[in-house]
């Protein structure tokens, strides 16, 4: 294993603070010392997707573990309550991570052939944070769901 694995508590932490991400985290994708997103970044990312529309809570359910053991791969399931017809059809769903280096995670587009507005995938989470999902309906309304996911071993190994 790498050198840093053998270094006890405090020393390893000072490596983290120094922002030397490479050594201990070569095997994981999210490194410390990388600025994480703030509320403004999340708002800007959402504006890119839905413009000035104001999301309303509802219709969106997010299936995620309460505690994610491995921040490198957290299973997320999204479902939007919808008749999938007329104005109630779901056009697109956008997923954001409030505490990741970049808040954008993924977007999904549905069609009448989808049958349901459901999608599942796996994501990286740097730390405990809210996952926010916006659902754009055919009639222009935007619904929102939010879910807190606790991360024990962040995509940063500690």
């Amino acid at each position: 294993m790498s050198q840093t694995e053998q270094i006890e508590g405090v020393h390893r932490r000072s490596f983290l603070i120094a922002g030397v991400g490479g050594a201990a985290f070569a095997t994981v994708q999210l490194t410390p010392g990388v600025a994480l997103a703030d509320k403004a970044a999340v708002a800007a990312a959402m504006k890119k997707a839905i413009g000035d529309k104001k999301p309303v809570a509802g219709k969106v359910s997010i299936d995620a573990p309460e505690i994610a053991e491995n921040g490198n791969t957290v299973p997320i399931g999204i479902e939007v309550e919808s008749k999938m017809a007329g104005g109630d059809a779901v056009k697109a769903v956008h997923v954001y991570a409030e505490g990741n280096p970049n808040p954008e995670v993924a977007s999904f587009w549905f069609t009448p052939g989808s049958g349901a507005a459901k999608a599942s995938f796996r994501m990286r989470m740097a730390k405990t944070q809210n996952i926010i999902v916006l659902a754009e309906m055919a009639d222009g309304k935007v619904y929102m769901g939010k879910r807190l996911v606790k991360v024990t071993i962040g995509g940063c190994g500690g």
Partner: protein
Amino acid sequence: MAQPRVRVPKKIKKGEVVTIKTLIGHKMETGLRRNKKTGKKIPRKIINSFEAKIDGKTVFKAVLHPAVSANPFISFTISPDKSGTIEFIWTEDGGKTFTKTAKFEVA
């Protein structure tokens, strides 16, 4: 590297909503990691989009960002009204694509 795998039910009842599962092997390099020895940033290279088409018509699309885990797993639903072929296309940064097809019967 890639070798995509998909799970598509062979027989679907008309009106049924079925789940399609897809998986593709890919590092999904975020662009945030640094080379241990040189300290240089390892450039980003991810699968940035995914599309499913039934008989040439798009039925589901996804755009992925570096937050999507390595070996992207994507599952979604379809509810076809007649038998056909479903084509899956994964697109990597730079434009390279990976595809897979599967046939299904609707009765």
